[in-house]
């Protein structure tokens, strides 16, 4: 089964493509792939590019000149864009600051101050399951709306599930529309003091339980928080929906990133199904860390048998080891190809590119350039 080859250069040079989203399981090289794509878009295709990373490894971040999490795109210097006139900028997402900015934008300074002081806001803005994903999408929306970039490359958060960032806006909407929230808001809207003063009798048992379990202070904080947020809900929702629509637009290209491991491939396949179901433009699959089968005229079995023979004679240890390395590589390549078939078999029309495993980790511009060339 051979999938069509993913034309990465075609994608990066296409002026109608404005957003590339890299998604996949944790630990498959998403951030490196995003950085390598950004560098290539700037150096080879002359595009004014920004890479939005979520949580890059320290040395990779340093290689792009990012020393702090400051939520602003920084110009990456020391790359070769003289010929093409491209530019590369990079930024690290600051989840809390992005959330604060959203709040400030949608409410009065007085209300904003109240919200920032509320312990629930503090918990939600730094740990809400999905806040990071939601804020990544919010930041993407901001970068796109500014319209100063030819291409935005996004590295999605290292979620529990790679799908979280797609679900985040919907989850937030569901949360904001929830019955629970409306019940909590009821007294605030009517100016009542007690949180549950206006709810029905059948709710009494529930409210008593909640009071008992959580304590009255918590309920006061909670109702203060939801009341304060209430004024901004419309704005929140609108933004989330807008970003969602941009993601569905043909100006966006989703790239699934995977390593040839069962879990990562399973995640990629699941993600591909979701993208298709949500009508998101899936451009292709990047298989990182592949060991290409490069026959040296020696099969794995022959190499191992020969290594065993050499062990017996005892004076050719180096060659015996070299043969074992060769055999292990062949077996690994075979296994990886088998694992990859799990995806290409299920999605035969999804274009694929693979990147050979590098002997050393990538943490400088030269390394990123090499990966970019291997991708293309």
């Amino acid at each position, binding site marked *: 089964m051979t999938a069509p080859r993913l034309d990465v250069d075609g994608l990066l040079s296409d002026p109608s493509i404005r957003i590339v989203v890299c998604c996949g399981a944790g630990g498959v090289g998403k951030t490196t792939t995003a950085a390598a794509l950004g560098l290539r878009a700037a150096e080879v295709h002359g595009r004014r590019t920004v890479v939005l990373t979520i949580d890059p490894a320290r040395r990779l971040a340093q290689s792009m000149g990012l020393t702090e999490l400051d939520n602003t795109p920084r110009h990456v210097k020391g790359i070769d864009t003289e010929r093409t006139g491209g530019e590369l900028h990079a930024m690290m997402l600051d989840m809390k600051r992005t959330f604060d900015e959203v709040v400030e934008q949608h409410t009065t300074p007085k209300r904003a101050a109240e919200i920032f002081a509320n312990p629930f806001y503090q918990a939600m803005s730094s740990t809400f399951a999905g806040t990071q994903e939601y804020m990544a999408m919010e930041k993407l929306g901001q970068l796109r709306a500014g319209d100063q970039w030819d291409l935005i490359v996004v590295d999605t958060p290292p979620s529990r599930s790679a799908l979280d960032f797609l679900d985040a806006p919907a989850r937030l909407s569901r949360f904001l529309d929830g*019955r629970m929230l409306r019940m909590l808001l009821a007294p605030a809207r009517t100016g009542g003091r007690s949180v549950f003063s206006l709810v029905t009798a059948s709710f009494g048992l529930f409210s008593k339980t909640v009071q008992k379990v959580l304590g009255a202070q918590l309920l006061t904080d909670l109702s203060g928080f939801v009341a304060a947020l209430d004024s901004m809900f419309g704005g929140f929702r609108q933004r989330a929906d807008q970003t969602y629509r941009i993601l569905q637009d043909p100006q966006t290209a989703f790239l699934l990133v995977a390593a040839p491991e069962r879990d990562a491939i399973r995640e990629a396949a699941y993600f591909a199904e979701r993208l298709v179901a949500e009508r998101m433009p899936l451009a292709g699959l990047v298989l990182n860390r592949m060991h290409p089968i490069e026959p040296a005229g020696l099969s794995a079995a022959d190499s191992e048998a020969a290594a065993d023979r050499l062990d017996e004679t005892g004076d050719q240890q*180096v060659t015996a080891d070299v043969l074992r390395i*060769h055999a292990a590589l062949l077996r690994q390549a075979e296994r990886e190809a088998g694992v990859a078939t799990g995806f290409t078999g299920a999605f035969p029309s999804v274009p694929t590119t693979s990147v050979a495993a590098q002997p050393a980790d990538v943490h400088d511009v030269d390394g990123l350039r090499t990966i970019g060339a291997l991708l293309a």
Partner: protein
Amino acid sequence: MPVRLTRARNVGRMGEHRNWPERLHVVTGKGGTGKSTVAAALALGLAAGGRRTLLVEVEGRQGIAQLFGLEPLPYAERRVAQTTGGGEVRALAVDPEEALLEYLDMFYKLGAAGRALRKVGAIDFATTIAPGLRDVLLTGKVKEATTRSRDGSRVYDAVVLDAPPTGRVGRFLNVTEETARLVKVGPIKTQSEGVASLLRSPMTAVHVVTLLEEMPVQETLDAIAELTALHIPVGRVVVNGARPPLLAGGKVTKAEIKRGLTAAGLPAATATVSRLTTEAQAHLTRRELEESLRLELAELDRPMVELPLLPDGVDRAALGELAALLMRA
């Protein structure tokens, strides 16, 4: 390894394993390092010789079921493997919603009111708005299983928790901090304090799984620093996927490979020799990097265990092999 030998060497009094004396083993690691595999192998190893362990997952990934080749696990403790001497591994996939209902029911005898909570979306709401509460529920369930006894003796000799990855594990385990900000009084506060004191006691050890690759090692160092600052006891550093020490001399030449191939009775075509040389050089580069990472880990001064790369992937037999290696370490 024969069972009797294992018992004689490693088991002190019943319920305590000499090499792994803690009762709650929390296993973390960067995504892709094989922490779920290590957690499963540890639960298997600790169950050898007629003991009973519980393997818990909390992220809804159904990783345990996949490892043991089973259907997705319900929110119930089910046997997933049997070991020597009548030992067994049970597994539990903790679901925060179910845990909350169970918890409320245990303390408040909620019954129908509990179902009503679910109906109005209160549980979804509670776990969304205060993720710290969610973690208290998950770790609370783990604590309950760890300390559960029946007829005066512990139900589980050991509990192994397949925890969230290194990037989130500090926050996950630091439950009091998270909930104290929100909950000033009441049973949730009591609950989170109970969990916090178990996690900071000698009954607990957090083991960090890594590969000899730069990012996992960096995250291991960061996680250990974070856990240490939180006063949560760090156990072993588990180096997973270690390669056999080939080419110990660190040097290889084409002439030597050519001689060796001839000695082995193989054709020594130029293309073959150069391909093998390239592969050997890449191996040496990789190994040099691995060696420096191993040194970085050694500087942590924590007990280290190395588990070999399993060329054919992980099945039940492979889990058994890893379990035996862990128990010897």
